[in-house]
């Protein structure tokens, strides 16, 4: 099994007609994802390499049965696009777009949680989600992941996630689902949401968590692991040597007022029984040992 998406998931793309949306939408389809529709009010009735384009998310959902949206719309349009998807009743809205204002993210998270509780936002500023061999929604290169399990991955960083997928593949270890929650201050889906789903998924036997400086998501994850997880977890936290007060590439990767340091996160995770690596390779090696011992 996998979490959130699988081979039966039907996905529509808001922004399929743009250059990024087209490139990744078609790549995702080549991977085997059920890419069923695009949405663009100005191009309704046309198609993108055979994928029909509809005027609204609601129409696209009605015509195709899509339950997931993947958003490649530029930052100024993201708030309206996410709300349209939520109002149409989609289950998962994957926001790849980078550079969404924090005020919009805070508003969207609270609005969707309250008014559309069955809709989950993933991202913004995330690489997307891949259940290897089943569905790839977003910008991850599908060929670097081995299908099957037993490992689930949840990560705040794109390239470090790819690194983890690739290293596990080299060791012939499969992945059930890999979720990139994104590097922004208000992620729609948290570490805990994913850990909870992995804990409940019978095929996932161990979880790899990749965090970075800023915020308290990793500390909250540690608390959850300590109290509610039976499956083993390995982790890596980037930004041990990051200077305070500087945004390290991601909008959410900042140590401010002495809070959000990598050291504090590593301590919290270690205290929760997580095996924490000092670099991505070490975290991968720890996971190999965990899998061998399963």
């Amino acid at each position: 099994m996998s979490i959130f998406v699988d081979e039966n998931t039907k996905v529509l793309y808001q922004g399929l007609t743009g250059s990024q949306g087209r490139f990744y939408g078609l790549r995702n389809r080549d991977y085997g994802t059920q890419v069923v529709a695009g949405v663009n009010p100005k191009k309704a009735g046309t198609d993108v390499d055979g994928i029909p384009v509809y005027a609204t998310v609601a129409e696209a959902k009605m015509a195709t049965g899509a339950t997931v949206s993947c958003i490649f719309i530029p930052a100024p349009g993201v708030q309206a696009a996410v709300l349209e998807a939520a109002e149409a009743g989609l289950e998962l809205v994957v926001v790849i777009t980078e550079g969404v204002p924090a005020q919009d993210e805070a508003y969207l998270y609270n609005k969707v949680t309250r008014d559309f509780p069955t809709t989950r936002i993933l991202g913004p500023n995330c690489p997307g989600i891949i259940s290897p061999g089943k569905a790839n929604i977003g910008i991850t290169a599908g060929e670097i992941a081995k299908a099957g399990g037993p490992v689930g991955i949840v990560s705040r960083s794109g390239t470090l996630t790819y690194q983890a997928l690739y290293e596990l593949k080299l060791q012939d270890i499969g992945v059930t689902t890999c979720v990139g929650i994104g590097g922004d201050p208000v992620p729609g889906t948290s570490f805990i949401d994913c850990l909870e789903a992995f804990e409940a998924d019978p095929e996932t036997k161990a979880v790899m968590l990749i965090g970075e400086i800023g915020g308290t998501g990793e500390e909250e994850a540690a608390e959850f692991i300590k109290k509610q997880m039976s499956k083993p977890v390995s982790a890596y936290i980037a930004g041990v040597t990051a200077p305070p007060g500087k945004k390290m590439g991601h909008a959410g990767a900042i140590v401010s007022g002495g809070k959000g340091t990598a050291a504090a996160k590593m301590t919290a995770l270690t205290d929760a029984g997580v095996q924490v690596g000092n670099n991505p390779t070490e975290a991968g090696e720890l996971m190999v040992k965990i899998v061998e011992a399963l």
Partner: protein
Amino acid sequence: MDLLEYQGKQFFASFDIPVSPGEAATTVDDAVAAADRIGYPVVIKAQVLVGGRGKAGGVKLATNTAEAREHAGNILGLDIKGHIVKVVWVEAASDIAEEYYASFTLDRAAKKHLGMLSAQGGVEIETVAETDPDAISKIWIDPVDGLTEDSARAWVSAARLNPDANDGTVDILLKLYRAYTKGDADLCEINPLILTPNGEVHALDAKVTLDGNAEFRHEGWDVYDATQVRDGREQAAHDKGLQYVGLEGSVGVIANGAGLAMSTVDIVTQVGGKPANFLDIGGGANAEVMAGALEVINNDPDVKAIFINIFGGITKGDEVANGIVTALGRVDIDVPIVIRLDGTNAEKGRAILVEHESEKLQSRSTMLEAAQAVVELAKSREV
């Protein structure tokens, strides 16, 4: 984006938050003319993005033209913790009865806006939080509901200010929340928020951090961008649109993706080296971006060796390697480079790099080996 005090006050004023009347000046003559217009006494304040201005002699009271000239002359050009004062803010001096603290920021854990109000203003809020946490009255605001007048009033009551300040403070907090949300700020802080002897409340200082991601919907933010403090390297990288943070070491770092770039800085440190920078060139890693990144690093005189750490995903390893080789042809690099290339088509990519290998260009297959090699090279060249 951090605003200077006077920019913050102008930002506040645009949301009708009362601030002291004042003018910014970049020369002594302009500062004196401003002081004469405003009327004495005035306070002349250094405009720098660093704390501790007062102690460094950057804030002075002037009661007449001669004093204004003397203080402006001393403050302009002053070096405050490495920040040279280029602008002073001249404002009417305020009579202070009481000093409070007020701010709005995002509580990332609660995913709500956090308002903080305290009767103990004029000192660092972190200090108050440690010594007397009960002195800070907090409110969590759902961004969908916003801050209502009723909840603002209850919040102000809970902070136990001088009752004379309550109405004025409620008014300012409602406006400050509007400035924080509509103005797309990450932080709006007033410290101190003052009550004057005749019962007026206004902002005596302004600390504002704007969310750079929201620049697309605000006219005129380029003014703020121009006053950001960046060293020469950071400015050069910024002009090229690169995500760069200057550090103080000898190993130049280039990586694709923020996480991998952070991780690269970490691993250089772990093996005993000192990274010169954080630089994320994004996912694609094409020749043009790579050449720009190499130019920025090459212009840093402290860099003794460069570590290029790329993970090929959709952009395949051979394309990345060709990009690096093209970039190296365009930029004349003085120091040795160690490349670690991994991911899709990594072997093809490494084969391309091998053809160009020399003392100046080496390739390693893991991050750890590459870090060790580059740190050794940097150290051998530091002497």
